[in-house]
């Protein structure tokens, strides 16, 4: 059972629609006890890191989530701001984040490119991974972001794209996956990625780690 964290600022509804479309069992999670029976977690994201962290703290789900992801190592997928809050710090509102992954989140330079980045950008894969099964050598995914992550360890980068230079588009750090792009809104390639995570990828990463 996939648990989709449902908080005020998120677009959990869209992620739920996508999970239903690919036929995986899923439910909303909004309280610590809702995690019972959950084998993998998706944290959807829209909006700012500060608001998202505030929402998650208000729900009181973070201790249970950290126990499941960091100790029990169940597969986790963060999307958009759900990627950004995993790092140590974000420039947006100068906020300290969860620090699950080393590195910081910084803003695109609007003197050089239009900010927010809105649209489809081409991803190139930085390592092979079971969640990429059935995808081409590079694929377009949908982005809406003004900020992006700079992981301390480049080995954490699963995919990169180019917007005023190469930036980190997806993360794989043990059992933790995260995507700056909206995989739930990236058409059939996004649904393929999501299906891989929910089925094969998630299963294999709990075996490896």
């Amino acid at each position: 059972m996939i648990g989709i964290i449902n908080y005020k600022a998120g677009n959990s509804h869209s992620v739920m629609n996508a999970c239903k479309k690919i036929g995986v069992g899923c439910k909303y999670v909004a309280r610590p006890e809702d995690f019972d029976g959950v084998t993998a977690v998706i944290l959807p994201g829209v909006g700012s890191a500060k608001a998202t962290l505030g929402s998650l703290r208000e729900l009181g789900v973070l201790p249970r989530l950290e126990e499941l992801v960091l100790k029990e190592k169940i597969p986790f997928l963060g999307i958009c701001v759900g990627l950004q809050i995993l790092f140590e710090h974000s420039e947006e509102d100068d906020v300290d984040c969860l620090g699950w992954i080393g590195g910081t989140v910084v803003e695109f330079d609007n003197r050089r490119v239009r900010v927010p980045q809105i649209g489809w950008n081409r991803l190139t894969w930085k390592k092979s991974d079971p969640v990429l099964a059935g995808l081409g050598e590079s694929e377009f995914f949908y982005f809406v972001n003004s900020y992006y992550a700079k992981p301390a360890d480049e080995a954490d980068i699963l995919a990169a794209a180019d917007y005023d230079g190469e930036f980190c588009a997806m993360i794989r750090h043990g059992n933790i996956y995260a995507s700056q792009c909206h995989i739930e809104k990236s058409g059939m390639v996004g649904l393929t990625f999501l299906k891989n995570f929910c089925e094969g990828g998630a299963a294999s990463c709990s075996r490896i780690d």
Partner: protein
Amino acid sequence: MLANRLIACFDVINGMVTKASQFQNNIDIEDAVTAAKRVYEMQIDELIFYDVTASAEKRPIDLNLVEAVGKEVFVPYTVGGGIRNLTDMYNVLKSGAEKISVDSMAVRNPEIIAQGAKEFGSQCIVLSMQVKRVGRSEKIPSGYEIAIDGARVFTGMDALEWARRGAGLGAGEVVVNSIDNDGTHHGYDLEITSLIADHLRIPVVASGGAGAMEHLYDVFTKTQASAGIISSMLYSPRLERNFTVREIKEYLHGRGVAIRPFIYR
């Protein structure tokens, strides 16, 4: 690199997609959910729905429709028309849309742009503007005036000035709808699209007039627009022939325009 976007736009009245010419003479095409699913399967990059009569009839947007579309469409979609306040915005986003388009209401109450951007993020707030070529004057230095309420009411506001103000208030994207070119199938108004795109640092979307694939080539090569809205080209019976998203994408790709490729599989 970031691809230019093709956005399908649907004007919806009572759940039916309609097609107008210069904001008049609407004809019904098909039900909105069917239309949305069809263009999603054609691999459109994005969709926009305008509940065109919600505002005039002073009723909220049809959330059941927004929700039904979300079950069929796995690319981003924007919803506009009948948005009055933050609660309406919240309901639309929670029903599955990614973005909210504000138009006449934002002219009457510009602060709604700032409030929406603060609450939901700039990326959710699309400022849609109806622009009419009126000739340059002291009051209208760009030569284009903003109209509201289905292009029926003129505001005396300069289009470039309003676009800048909207961006400053926190809009994440601006849609420039040409009243003169809407429904003519003669191409986008490149002059105002270019002017606004050159002066803003957020994405600008060209709208109104696309009737041939060359029009998209022109807007992506002669202006800094990030996206072009197509509607007639996809489904209007008023056009001699309609186009598939695939042929438009392959045409643009063949002429060197950055576009998300059509996927065969």
